[in-house]
């Protein structure tokens, strides 16, 4: 038997490794997507005062620190006795604006910087060409818009949290700073940066671009890494619409049957278990009722668009309806459609940012609420990559005694392993020669999930990524290592 190793997997956040075992005829025997960083944040946060959690845990990640900041903040709100609905309206809206800015910039980063090289140049293109710098040179107008869209989201974050990475906005029971008129106008008047209206227009343009790409490449996009899975995410408590900040948990199976019926996020622990495998530091969450084999779910843009009843903003809703037509209204299990779903969410975020920027509440000083102290808090939000769960317990001296984090990429662990299996079985298996383009397709399938492996294992240190090919005795035949 032979073994292929891809190490590191590239254009993802963090360090992962893929191993594919082949028999003597190059037929795939088994495949694994390993996460090889160690897990530490849940432990070393213990003993710290609870109000430090939103600041400390965002250090898990340099891409989506805002998501961790806000999930922790929601949990800490509960510890000071404040439910999401009890926050002042200005605090709710400022947090949501921060969250939409974060998702907008993260989705722009993924589409323009990480995914577009495969789409624009092809999965078999020269590896030296498959990077964002080459995209920028070959498609300068697209690149310039991508840069300014990411910048817009980052400027929203900087305005609210003080800096683009690892800033601070949330405090227990609210936020510490309002938005000033001058700060608000910066995003509306087009004087220094393109306005939020430009962000909406460009989001529509890029969706149109991708729809055109789908028309030309429909067969490949329909078939590549398509496999049945569950889909999990938050939905609006009142109408089941797309919800990114606070809602109920809903899951549907591959055929659209409800497997988790809009449960309050505080009850998550009754419904989820986490499995472990000896070959990965990343756990495997699943729905208890369905068990480890059948209870796993995709999370993130594709899952969210699949499970929601609608989108509250008009342009994104229009695009959602078009997206749903591609599967005749049924659940979409096609991995490559994640990119399209991600862009619909970008448009939704842009529309929501416009709505919130024009809301006078964000200029208010009514920022913090207090309630009755509790010993436990749970915060669940939809991060760019999917459902993010923060759960803390504290003692009488305000110290954190227990912390449980289930991050988006952890939910996507089994789906990504399924994606690797699909490529191994459908692209690599039985081929006499394994090409670089074939191995890149393994990465393309993983990349569609936009995994954040540093978040998923709460890593410290450097994060290279690795693909290995081994024979049946485990001897290494070929290996790609990028650090």
């Amino acid at each position: 038997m032979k073994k292929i190793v891809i190490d590191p997997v590239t254009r993802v956040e963090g360090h992962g490794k893929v191993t594919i075992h082949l028999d003597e005829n190059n037929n795939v025997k088994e495949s694994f997507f390993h996460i090889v960083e160690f897990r530490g944040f849940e432990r070393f946060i213990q003993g710290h005062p609870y109000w430090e959690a939103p600041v400390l845990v965002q250090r898990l990640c340099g891409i989506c620190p805002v998501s961790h900041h806000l999930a922790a903040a929601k949990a800490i709100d509960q510890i000071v006795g404040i439910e999401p609905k009890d926050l002042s309206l200005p605090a709710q809206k400022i947090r949501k604006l921060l969250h939409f800015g974060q998702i907008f910039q993260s989705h722009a980063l993924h589409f323009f910087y990480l995914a577009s090289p495969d789409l624009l140049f092809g999965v078999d293109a020269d590896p030296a060409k498959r990077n964002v710098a080459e995209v920028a040179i070959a498609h300068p107008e697209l690149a310039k818009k991508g840069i300014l869209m990411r910048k817009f989201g980052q400027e929203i974050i900087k305005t609210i949290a003080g800096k683009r990475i690892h800033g601070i906005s949330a405090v227990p029971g609210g936020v510490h700073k309002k938005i000033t008129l001058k700060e608000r106008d910066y995003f509306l008047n087009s004087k220094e940066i393109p306005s939020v209206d430009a962000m909406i227009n460009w989001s529509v343009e890029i969706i149109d671009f991708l729809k055109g790409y789908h028309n030309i490449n429909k067969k490949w996009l329909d078939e590549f890494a398509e496999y049945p899975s569950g889909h999990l995410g938050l939905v609006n408590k009142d109408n089941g619409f797309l919800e990114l900040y606070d809602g109920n948990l809903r899951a549907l199976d591959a055929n659209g049957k409800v497997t988790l019926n809009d449960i309050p996020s505080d009850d998550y622990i009754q419904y989820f278990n986490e499995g472990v495998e000896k070959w990965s530091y990343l756990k495997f969450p699943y729905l208890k009722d369905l068990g480890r084999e059948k209870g796993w779910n995709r999370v993130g843009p594709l899952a969210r668009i699949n499970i929601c009843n609608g989108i509250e903003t008009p342009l994104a809703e229009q695009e959602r309806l078009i997206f749903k037509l591609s599967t005749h209204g049924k659940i979409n299990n096609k991995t490559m459609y994640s990119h399209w779903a991600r862009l619909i969410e970008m448009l939704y975020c842009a529309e929501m940012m416009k709505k919130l920027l024009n809301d006078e509440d964000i200029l208010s000083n009514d920022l913090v609420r207090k309630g009755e102290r509790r010993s436990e808090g749970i915060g669940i939000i939809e991060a760019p990559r999917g459902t993010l769960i923060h759960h803390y317990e504290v003692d009488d001296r305000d110290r954190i005694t227990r912390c449980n984090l289930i991050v988006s990429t952890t939910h996507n662990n089994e789906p990504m392993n399924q994606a690797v299996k699909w490529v191994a079985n459908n692209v690599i298996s039985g081929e006499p020669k394994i090409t670089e383009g074939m191995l890149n397709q393994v990465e393309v399938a993983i990349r569609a999930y936009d995994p954040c492996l540093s978040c998923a294992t709460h890593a410290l240190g450097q994060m290279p990524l690795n693909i290995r090919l081994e024979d049946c005795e485990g001897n290494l035949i070929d290996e790609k290592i990028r650090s």
Partner: protein
Amino acid sequence: MKKLDHKAIVIGIGNIGRQDDGIAWLFLDYLKEQNINIDLEYRYQLQIEDAELISNYAKVFFIDATKETTEHGFYLKPCLPSITYNFSSHAVEPETILRLCNKLYNRNPETSILGIQGYHWDLKIGLSKKGTINFNKAKKYFNDKVLINYL
């Protein structure tokens, strides 16, 4: 403060929580105290959008800690646009940023890199002894040769 006929920016790359990797940020802290007419930006890593940022300036200085052995503990060298690209989404080289600035925005700011040699990179705040010596040498050189034009 001197009134300049051009816009200048110093971009410091590093992480203050990683010993000598914090050199560039400390350098920016030092520049901030000098009350100079230069914009300052702190970065963990450079990103593609920094090409757009530097397109707005006539002079650009990138400052970073380096593991390379240097003759004087630091170097100040011109930054030339690179044709190579590092695969990582986490870090883009100054040379790549400059190339993208040229290609996307048709701008070519006069760009330099100040590399200051570091030795220790663990999770700890504070420079190593040798790192501190190099930091001070680089400060003096930058003061005498560059900052003098901006004070």
